[in-house]
Structures are given as structure tokens and as C-alpha cells.
């Protein structure tokens, strides 16, 4: 199947280096300490952060830092066919672990010992790049909750089909069987915190694809910064500053 037409357009009409439309909103769940909805094209994800709060299970309490927990789950209607087991399956457990470890790297856990921070992510619509959308949503939700962080974590995916590096794969391109690189970086510090890849890719091409994904991450970081500063302006406005 042709994923990149001879004119250089992808299946959904994008250019190879073009990302899908981003849309984000924070403060969507009234009961949560911090929450955000993040959309990348048709992939829509909602994240809620509860914490820092008392540790639920005393035996897991850490005396010098905060405990970070994460749960990833997909809604039954999020994919094309209705899912039977959206939570306990291996893929969800793996992604929960990945998101937890990624966010743990950027939260200043030393400032909140003996407490617990819960990050819950729910996928409402899945069209490829759910892992990245979840990490971006979690970053926004943590910022909304006012939890101290070293830097944002932004994430993006990139692949290589029809001899072209492609940025931000959707579901069809992802299932094409080509390589899929997901990267999570701390944009200001320019450090990589998450890097995952499936399928085979020659090493010289890998550098290109990874660089492309990192560029995507930086663009997302710009957008996130805009959303947060807009939100702060709204808060100031409401306070009458």
C-alpha cells in the first residue's frame, strides 16, 4: 500500500514532516487537582492528577520522596471495534509503567516526601500516538495541579515508510508494519527521557527519524507553553489584576 503519494502527500493529506492538529484544554475535571484534555488529530485523551495526597498503602510510603502512580486505560469505544478488556491487558499495563517512569523523571519528588501523586489517563478516541498524547496530557495536568517539575515532558512519534521519514503517525501508518519511534524529551534541558522503537531500522536512518521526532516534541512544547500562559492570563484577569 502506498503511504506517501508521488506528490509527497500522506493518506490524510499531510506532508511527511507535518504534525496533526493539536488541541488542549486544562481544568476540565472539576474534582481533580489538575486535569487536561489533549488532542492530536483524532486521538483524544483526558488526564487527571490527584495529589500530593496521603499515601493509600502505608507499606509503599517513601520517606524521602513522593510516590508517583499512573493508570492508563482506554474507553471501550475508543478504537474501531469495541474493546473487551480495556484495562488489565498487557499493553495497558506496559503503557502505565512507561508513563509513570517518564513523569517521575521530571517531577521534583524530593519536595513532597511521604505523599502520593496519582496520574490517571483515559483514552477517549484512539487514532495512533496514544502514548505520546497521554504523556502530553499528563504534563499539562501536572502543571494545572501546580506540582513542581524540572521541565515539561513532551512526546511525539515518527516512522519510516516508502523511504520517507514521517512525523506523528496515525493508526493506519502505525499498523503498516514499518518502524515506529516514540520519543519523550525535556525540551528546555534537551534531554531524552523516553525512547522506544519497534521493527527494524538501519542505524543511519534511525538518527534522522529520531531527530524528526525530537523536533515534533519541541513544537508540542511551544504549544503547551502557549496554552499554559493563556490560562494564567485568564486567571489573572479573573482576579482583577
Amino acid at each position, binding site marked *: 500500500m502506498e503511504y506517501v503519494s508521488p506528490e509527497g502527500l500522506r493518506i490524510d493529506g499531510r506532508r511527511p514532516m507535518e504534525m496533526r492538529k493539536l488541541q488542549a484544554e486544562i481544568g476540565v*475535571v472539576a*474534582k481533580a487537582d489538575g486535569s487536561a484534555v489533549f488532542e492530536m488529530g483524532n486521538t483524544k485523551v483526558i488526564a487527571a492528577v490527584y495529589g500530593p495526597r496521603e499515601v493509600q498503602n502505608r507499606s509503599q510510603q517513601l520517606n524521602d520522596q513522593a510516590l508517583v502512580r499512573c493508570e492508563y486505560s482506554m474507553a471501550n469505544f475508543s478504537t*474501531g471495534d469495541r474493546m473487551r478488556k480495556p484495562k488489565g491487558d498487557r499493553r495497558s499495563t506496559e503503557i502505565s509503567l512507561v508513563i509513570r517512569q517518564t513523569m517521575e523523571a521530571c517531577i521534583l519528588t524530593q519536595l513532597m516526601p511521604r505523599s502520593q501523586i496519582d496520574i490517571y*489517563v*483515559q483514552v477517549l478516541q484512539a487514532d495512533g500516538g496514544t502514548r505520546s498524547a497521554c504523556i502530553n496530557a499528563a504534563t499539562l495536568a501536572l502543571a494545572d495541579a501546580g506540582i513542581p517539575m524540572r521541565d515539561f515532558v513532551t512526546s511525539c512519534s515518527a516512522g519510516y515508510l516508502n523511504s520517507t521519514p514521517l512525523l506523528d503517525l496515525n493508526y493506519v501508518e502505525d499498523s503498516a508494519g514499518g518502524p515506529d519511534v516514540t520519543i519523550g524529551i525535556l525540551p528546555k534541558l534537551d534531554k531524552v527521557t523516553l525512547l522506544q522503537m519497534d521493527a527494524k531500522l538501519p542505524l543511519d536512518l534511525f538518527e534522522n527519524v529520531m531527530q524528526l521526532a525530537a523536533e515534533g516534541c519541541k513544537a508540542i512544547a511551544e504549544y503547551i507553553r502557549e496554552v499554559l500562559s493563556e490560562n494564567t492570563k485568564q486567571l489573572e484577569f479573573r482576579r482583577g489584576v
Partner: protein
Amino acid sequence: MGTPNAVGDWSSEMEVSAFRRLFPLHYYERHLSESIRPDARPLKRARDTIVSLGAVASSDGSALAKIGSTTMLAAIKMEVMTPSVDLPDEGSIAVEFHMPPICSPVVRPGRPAEVAPVISKQLFDSLLSSGMIDLKELSLIKGKAAWMAYLDIYCLDADGALFDAALLSAVAAFSHLRIPVVSLNDEGRMVMVSKELEGEKLDKEPVDKERRKLSLKSIPFSLTCILHKNYILADPTFEEESIMETFITVVLNSSGQLVSLYKPGGPVLAHTSAIQECVALTRQRMKELEEIIDEAISTMEID
């Protein structure tokens, strides 16, 4: 907590928010005696309600309903199945209500909320017994194929009156539902006709020519009220529900008939007059909700 006098002394000394956390019942009773609630609502008024159809693009019918902060997302997916032997010309519905941990600080992963299966069952019973959906409309080929409608409702924010919001979102999702077009392929199996082929000539004739809607009669609407001493509070928030535990949920259908009445115990014993008042309040609320749903449907049809 001490005598009312002692509490009264405290109330003049401490900040309002501290008093609210430490003596919630006294805080509320102070308001109720003036016939008002902390969010400035009169006792019988429900919160602002919003319904939006078509929230989930990948499903066959969906809706988002918000009552105050309580948010419910409902989506319906249709699948073909073989009807049961004793009801060969009827399809069926499966309802599942989920409370993911994002909705509330009291829901933890690994320990699902107690109320979720209760509300699931209540919803299923109300939807079926209200007669809103004629299961015969979900039949495709008698005895061989029928539709199974999977309704999944996700609570995205739990701030009281969960059943009301869930029922509203379910009703809205069913009014948005468009049944997909299917045809019988060579092996005798039902195959979805994809959107690209819908206009062209097909080898086998599809069972329906176009995506049809369900005809919904007698739509159910509900209202939950809290009973406390002599007061009746309509549409409680999460805080009100956790302090004053006795509640009653009344479900009426659009012809004004009583579909269901649910009062699961609780410390307050209600007179029949209180129950009749709740039914009257529900009747009023039903008119508001009917308007809201009709508006949502007409906005969607304009698009």
C-alpha cells in the same frame, strides 16, 4: 461534636471554609434554614444542564451530558449477533457504566467504585422498562441476525446526581444513534457496508438503504432528591450526598407515567407526602430536560 451552642461559639471564631470542613452538617443546616444552599441555589432547583450530541466520532451514536460539574460521556457501538431462540425477532442492548479513577478522588485503581455496578443495573432496568426502545427495530433478519447495541457510559467528573446525568447521556446517545448499513455476503454473514461503497451498486442488496434512526417513544427522565429532616434538596452535589445520605431517585417517562422509584434505605424515613413532592419535582424537571434534549437534537440536525 458538642451541643449546638458550642458549635455556634466556634462558628463565630473560625473561618468559613474551616467550619465547612469540620462541621459540615451544621454548615448546611444554617443554609437550609434560610432556604438556600451554599452554591446559591434554591432547594428545589437543579444545576445548569448541557447536552451535546456526537461527542465521539468513532461510535455509531454518542453524547456528552453535564449537570453542573458532573460529566458523563456515553457512546453506542452496534454489532451483529444471532438473536436468542425464544425471541428471534428482537435485538438487544447491553449497558455498562464505568467510573474511571479520573472522575473522583475517592475512586482508586484496583478498587472500583461501589456505586458503578448499581448504577449500571439501574440504568439498564430504567431504559428497558420505560419502553423507549422497541427491540424489534433492532432486528435484521428474523431468527438469523439482529443488532446488539453496546452502550458504554464513562463518568468523567463525579459531582453528585450520577444516575441523572448517566440516564440523560444514555437517552441523548440513543437519539443520536444512526444504525450502520449492512448486507449479507456470500457466506451468509453480515458485513458492514463501508461509507465509500454506500452510494455504489453492490452485489447483494443491503438490508437497509441508509443509516436509519431508532424511533424513541416515551423517553425516561429522572431526578434525584436528598431528604434531610423536613427538607427536600433537588439535584445534590457530591458534598451534599456524602453528608446527608438519604436520597430518592424518581424516573418518569414523557407521558408522565412513573417508570421507577428508588429509595435505598438511609437514616431518614419519608412520609408519602415527601415522596409525592419528589415526584412533582421530577415532573417539573422533566419539562426542562425535554427542552434541552430537543434543542440538542435540532442543533445537530442543522449541522
